[in-house]
């Protein structure tokens, strides 16, 4: 999916993937499956497949797909993919989260406004709004770029500046690793938006993370996360 460049191609591949999943689901049963069964299966497949680029591809499709298609099958399975990814990324055992987080709701709302706008573009009364929204869109795109970049950068800096973090990543379990990665990205994103300072600040943040990692490498993921967040708050 990552290799295809057009959002349409990507969605086609997504539909093929979904079809394959359905196919293997029905291989052992004669009943027809709905979302009750499909979403857990898709989630499981995503977890097992270890696709690094998936989140970015999903965002890419959601931003660039033809609005008409968002109403169709492609849109549905894209939504399901988004839902599965959200479920994975927000998964907290023993804590039944009954509501979407505020950030996710906002980003969905923003996305929805961006995308439905183009359907109404012909109407003159909305002209002002049509000018304004592309700006928001560029802003968010820019933001996510920064986030990705900074995460990448921080990863590199940490690796070169402090070998412990790399070791930690290698020794950790797969689940822990992805969890950490996600968290680092999130934190970096936050740090970037709040400090927007020179790059040495970012590096010192990395050192901070790395030292945290070192000190907590023996503890459980949850414990490490909590204390790291505390440290981070102090730092900021």
């Amino acid at each position, binding site marked *: 999916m990552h290799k295809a460049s057009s959002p349409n191609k990507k969605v086609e591949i997504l539909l093929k993937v979904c079809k394959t999943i359905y196919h293997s689901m029905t291989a052992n049963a004669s009943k027809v499956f709905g979302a*009750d069964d*499909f979403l857990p299966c898709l989630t499981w497949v995503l977890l097992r497949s270890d696709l690094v680029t998936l989140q970015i591809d999903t965002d890419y499709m959601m931003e660039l797909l033809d609005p008409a298609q968002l109403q169709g099958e492609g849109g*549905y399975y894209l939504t399901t993919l988004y*839902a599965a990814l959200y*479920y994975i990324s927000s998964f907290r055992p023993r804590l039944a989260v009954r*509501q*979407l987080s505020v950030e996710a709701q906002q980003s969905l709302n923003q996305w929805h406004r961006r995308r439905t706008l183009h359907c109404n573009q012909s*109407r003159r009364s909305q002209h002002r709004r049509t000018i304004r929204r592309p700006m928001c869109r560029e802003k968010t795109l820019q933001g996510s770029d920064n986030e990705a970049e900074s995460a990448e950068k921080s990863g590199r800096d940490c690796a070169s500046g402090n070998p412990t973090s790399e070791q930690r990543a290698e020794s950790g379990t797969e689940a822990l690793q992805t969890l950490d990665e996600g968290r680092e990205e999130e934190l970096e994103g936050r740090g970037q938006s709040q400090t927007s300072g020179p790059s040495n600040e970012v590096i010192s943040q990395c050192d901070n993370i790395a030292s945290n990692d070192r000190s907590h490498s023996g503890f459980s993921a949850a414990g490490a996360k909590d204390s790291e967040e505390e440290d981070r708050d102090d730092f900021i």
Partner: protein
Amino acid sequence: MAAAAGGSRTYSFKVVLLGEGCVGKTSLVLRYCENKFNDKHITTLQASFLTKKLNITGKRVNLAIWDTAGQERFHALGPIYYRDSNGAVLVYDITDQDSFQKVKNWVKELRKMLGNDICLCIVGNKIDLDKDRNVSVEEAESYAESVGAKHFHTSAKLNKGIEELFLDLCKRMMETAQADERLKGNGSSQSASSRRGVQIVDDEPQATPSGGCCSSG
């Protein structure tokens, strides 16, 4: 998005199916779409997303029916699915009081998030199991009325009440869409629905710092 595309009278509606797991959402929609159209309109994939073309009083209606995962642990994913839908079918199992309670939660959430733009149908499924009924007809119907929803009894197994349910829902969605159009036609100052307007406010502070990228016209 009730887009009457290009001025032609074809309505496209998105209908989302909500309800606890195992109440028969999938069977319901499968029965509805499959029975009449002989598999032809079941798209390449399976029963999570189904479309149906209807002709109601000379107007063409494209119905896209989005199934959702009803298990409690997926509850938080609801908004991802129901955002932007024109109608919601809230399904409960008449033998299961809990599933009816779940419907009430969904109604509350939908009304809170989408206001009155969305047409609701509350559906008591599995009436073939009437002898095990645990949700009384009166209770369900009076509740539905109190929240401005229509109540239906269906059985996917016996194929009862399903046509009526979707037909009624379509008619109501068409009325809503027409009223919406009229509103837009008259006073375009309030053209965007209120929920869109409100959220522009919290957008603005973020947009201001990024200078000079909106010069295009």
